[in-house]
C-alpha cells in the first residue's frame, strides 16, 4: 500500500468521521459556548485536512492557507467570547 493510498483510504475518512462527530455537537450543543467550541475544533481539524491534501497533491503552498485558517479561527473564537460576555438577558 503506497502512502497516497493510505492517506486517501484511511487518514482522510478518519478525519471526516471526526468532523461529523464535531458537527453533531455543533447542531445539538445545548449552550452557545458549546457551539463556539465546536466551531473552533472544526477549524482546527480543517487545518489537518489541508495538510493531508497538501501531501496528496504535492503542493506545499496549501500550508499558507492553513496558517490563515488558524488565524481566522482564533479571531472568531475571540469575537464570539466577547459578544457572549456582552449579551445580557438570554441565557441560551
Amino acid at each position, binding site marked *: 500500500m503506497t502512502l497516497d493510498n493510505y492517506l486517501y483510504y484511511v*487518514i482522510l475518512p*478518519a478525519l471526516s468521521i471526526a*468532523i461529523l462527530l464535531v458537527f453533531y455537537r455543533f447542531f445539538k450543543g445545548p*449552550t452557545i459556548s458549546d457551539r463556539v467550541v465546536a466551531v473552533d475544533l472544526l477549524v482546527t481539524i480543517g487545518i489537518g485536512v489541508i495538510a493531508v491534501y497538501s501531501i496528496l497533491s504535492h503542493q*506545499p503552498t496549501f500550508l499558507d492557507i492553513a496558517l490563515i485558517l*488558524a488565524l481566522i479561527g482564533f479571531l472568531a473564537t475571540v469575537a464570539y467570547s*466577547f459578544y457572549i460576555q456582552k449579551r445580557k438577558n438570554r441565557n441560551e
Partner: protein
Amino acid sequence: MIVDTIIGVIATLGTLFVLLAGVGILRMPDTYLRMAVTTKAATLGIGLILVSAAIYFNDLSTTTRVLAVIIFILLTAPVGAHLIGKASYIKGNKLWEKTTMDDLAGKYRKTGKNISLPRNMDKHKEKDQEKS
C-alpha cells in the same frame, strides 16, 4: 520507503488524537470538559499531522511554515479556550454535577440570571453590606 512509513505512522497517531477529540467533544458531560478536549487532544493531533507534512516535503521553507502554524496553534488554543470558558462561566453555565472543585465560586457577583463581571466587586460588596 522508510520515510513513507514514518510519515504514515506519524499521520496515523495525529489522526487518532483528532478522532479522540471528536469522540470527546461528543461524549463529555460539560462545556468546560469539552473545551479541555479541544485544547489538548486536537492540538497534539493537528501538530503531528503537520509534522508529517513537513517530513514529506523535506524543505526548509515548508518546514518553517509548518513550524509557524504549530507555534501559532500552540499559542492560540489555550488563549481561546480561556476566553470562551470565562465567557460561558459569566453567562452562568452549570458545571458538571460531579465536579469537585470550583475555584471561581464566589468570585463573581450574581445579578438575576447572569453573573456580573468582577469590575466593581468591592463597591458591590460595600453596598450589600450596607443593605444588610
